[in-house]
């Protein structure tokens, strides 16, 4: 009881702001009144996800109370998914889903986008107040960490975690501190550190599933694939609905180059907890494996689940249309793009890719003249812009139209500009070239030094994760010999040098190299989020 009193005393309702989202006006009013009784004054309301987004465009809120069952098209879960995926929800904001008992098992099991808490409606005042107090008690304790994470200052976040671990080892929220530390370490790719922190968490409580999951993740990142598989396998054996574990098993399958098993795990996760995001991932994996029917079904499900909502994506229509072209149903592909996807117009990369896939479809249906016009239009729309997926679709259209030279150039360029997504784009290019009967040229296209660089960067990453920094540097040096401005190599080199500086202290040579890599990256990929985070970490190391 004493602890509960102190929790209540620490939460100053009059200093907190809230956004209440419910499609029923009477419910909005009732919840707002309840919060006012607690002492809150700064409360806004919204009747839909769209209206709430408008509010969030202007300011942030400490507390968001959102009804799960908002009017279509966007539910509370769509809203939360959008906020988290777009990074619009600050770590220091508390998101509570208000749900009926008929929905709460779905809400609570939504592993990927989990609210901070959920409450059943109607919630008596005393209980609601107690729940909010508890949530803010936790938030207040974690605040230094949350603020650092908000700013992308992962080094500072880790330092805050360490401070709490040292000064408050027995605190009720200490496991949450450890979880945040693991999150920050993973963001910095300090997987050895993350593993160590997982073991500390496990020593405190060995019966918490997320600890085992993070242990498996850290081992996977360190290349200990069998260990990761063993841990993840045990998790699903204990809980057959543990979606995050299935998704990890899928990544393990990819690491073992067992794409079939990886797809099976993804499909399992989408069966347990269907969501547009999951279906998108299933669709792409199935497509790359040539399982077009599964890809089609998954794309259709993604569209169905997100149609009209704030998480709707024009890409889903492109994926579905491309799959239909590959299945030989060109008229269906044309209908999808010219009718169903008409609402998206011809904007940006969507417009380019739409024209490229339509060109493929018209070629398939025998209208070569129209196809060539569409290819020309796509090329004009593309202009000087770059996007690996779009260029792959356009390259495929070019090859199908008989323009071998332009097609191969387009594929090569797609691989070169793909940066972080190079492995993914390489897979798409490989499939696309195979589909048009040019599998013999895949190595030339991707290899233009590219695959060798990819291999060298992968080897460097493995050495980096095992803290063999000098060896990792040699690998990257070899990569730069092939292509001095390869983005992936530059990112890996920057990461390596930051970890090196962190471990061994300030060194003029390392500092100079790091500055050089960051400067080149700034020029090649300006305003890149990862590069900006690297800069912040670099400043932290330098003591700035």
């Amino acid at each position: 009881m004493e602890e509960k009193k102190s929790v209540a005393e620490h939460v100053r309702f009059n200093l907190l702001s809230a956004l209440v989202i419910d499609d029923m006006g009477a419910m909005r009013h009732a919840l707002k009144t309840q919060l006012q009784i607690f002492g809150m004054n700064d409360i806004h309301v919204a009747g839909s996800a769209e209206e709430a987004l408008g509010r969030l465009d202007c300011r942030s809120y400490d507390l968001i109370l959102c009804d799960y069952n908002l009017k279509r098209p966007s539910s509370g879960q769509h809203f939360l998914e959008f906020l988290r995926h777009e990074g619009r929800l600050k770590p220091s904001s508390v998101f509570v889903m208000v749900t009926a008992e008929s929905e709460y098992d779905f809400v609570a099991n939504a592993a990927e986008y989990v609210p901070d808490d959920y409450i059943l409606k109607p919630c008596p005042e005393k209980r609601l107040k107690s729940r909010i107090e508890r949530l803010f008690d936790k938030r207040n304790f974690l605040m230094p960490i949350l603020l650092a994470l908000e700013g992308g200052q992962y080094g500072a976040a880790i330092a805050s975690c360490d401070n709490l671990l040292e000064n408050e080892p027995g605190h009720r929220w200490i496991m949450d501190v450890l979880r945040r530390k693991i999150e920050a370490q993973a963001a910095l790719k300090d997987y050895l550190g993350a593993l160590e922190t997982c073991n500390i968490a496990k020593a405190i409580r060995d019966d918490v599933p997320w600890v085992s999951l993070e242990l498996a993740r850290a081992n996977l990142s360190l290349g200990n694939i069998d260990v990761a598989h063993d841990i993840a396998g045990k998790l699903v054996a204990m809980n057959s609905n543990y979606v995050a574990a299935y998704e990890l098993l899928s990544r393990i399958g990819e690491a073992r180059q067992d794409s079939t098993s990886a797809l099976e795990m993804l499909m399992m996760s989408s069966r347990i907890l269907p969501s547009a995001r999951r279906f998108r991932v299933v669709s792409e994996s199935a497509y790359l494996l040539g399982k077009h029917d599964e890809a089609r079904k998954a794309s259709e499900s993604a569209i169905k689940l997100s149609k009209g909502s704030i998480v709707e994506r024009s890409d889903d229509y492109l994926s579905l249309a491309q799959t239909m072209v590959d299945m030989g149903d060109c008229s269906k592909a044309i209908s999808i793009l010219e009718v169903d996807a008409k609402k998206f117009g011809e904007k940006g990369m969507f417009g380019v890719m739409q024209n490229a896939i339509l060109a493929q479809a018209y070629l398939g249906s025998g209208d070569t003249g129209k196809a060539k016009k569409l290819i020309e239009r796509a090329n004009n729309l593309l202009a000087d812009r770059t996007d690996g997926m779009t260029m792959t679709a356009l390259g495929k259209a070019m090859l199908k139209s008989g323009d071998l030279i332009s097609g191969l150039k387009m594929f090569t360029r797609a691989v070169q500009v793909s940066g972080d997504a190079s492995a993914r784009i390489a897979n798409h290019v490989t499939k696309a070239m195979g589909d048009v009967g040019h599998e013999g040229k895949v190595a030339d296209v991707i290899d233009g030094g590219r695959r060798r660089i990819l291999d060298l960067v992968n080897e460097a990453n493995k050495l980096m994760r095992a803290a063999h920094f000098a060896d990792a540097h040699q690998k990257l040096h070899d990569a730069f010999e092939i292509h001095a401005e390869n983005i992936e190599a530059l990112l890996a080199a920057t990461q390596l040098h930051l970890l090196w500086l962190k471990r061994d202290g300030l060194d003029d040579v390392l500092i100079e190299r790091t500055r050089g890599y960051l400067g080149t990256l700034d020029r090649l990929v300006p305003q890149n989020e990862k590069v900006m985070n690297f800069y912040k970490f670099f400043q932290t190391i330098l003591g700035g």
Partner: protein
Amino acid sequence: MIMHDMKNSIALLEMDLERLNHHPGLPADAALAYRRCQDLKARLIAFLTLYRIEQTGFQPVGSPVNVLEFLEGVVEFSPSAETGSVPVCVAMERIQRNPLTKSWDIAYFDKLLVEMAMESAINNAVRYAKQRIDVWYETEGDSISFFVLDDGPAIDSADASVQQHASSTGLGLALCHAVAAAHGGGGSVSIATLPDEGTLFTLKLPTLR
């Protein structure tokens, strides 16, 4: 859709009555109206939950729960505990710390379902208890048991009104059985007379992961 509207209407009525009861000097009937509304809501939700468990593929949601905190919350927020004339207490003397972690147990179960079951059991105990109701838990291996002990007359008493003790739970007991079953094999519900003590309700669950 109809049920959704009904629940929303009851929710709004409850919130209105709750707000009204903040005003000083209200007649006792106002508080009674609020309690009756809470009771109605609880029964509706229990019925709907029971229906879902029995008719659809309801998946219980396991989460790590500090069991002592959970029980304290159940007792603190239980409408029956709040309004009944007999105190409902967490029997600390019957609860042991985990010998390995030296702290209170963390167990994995569906908080919402178990809370409903416990409220139902407490609601029933409040009707028959004389002076006290004790609530506690025990863990054993991969299972956890929750107990509600009231010092009312035995369930096999000749008193006709008391004979309703076991069957008067009706919806509540059915919900408790369903909650136990939803948690998988090994779950059970029992009501037994303890000589010189009273009536003991036990909800045993295998813990989820």
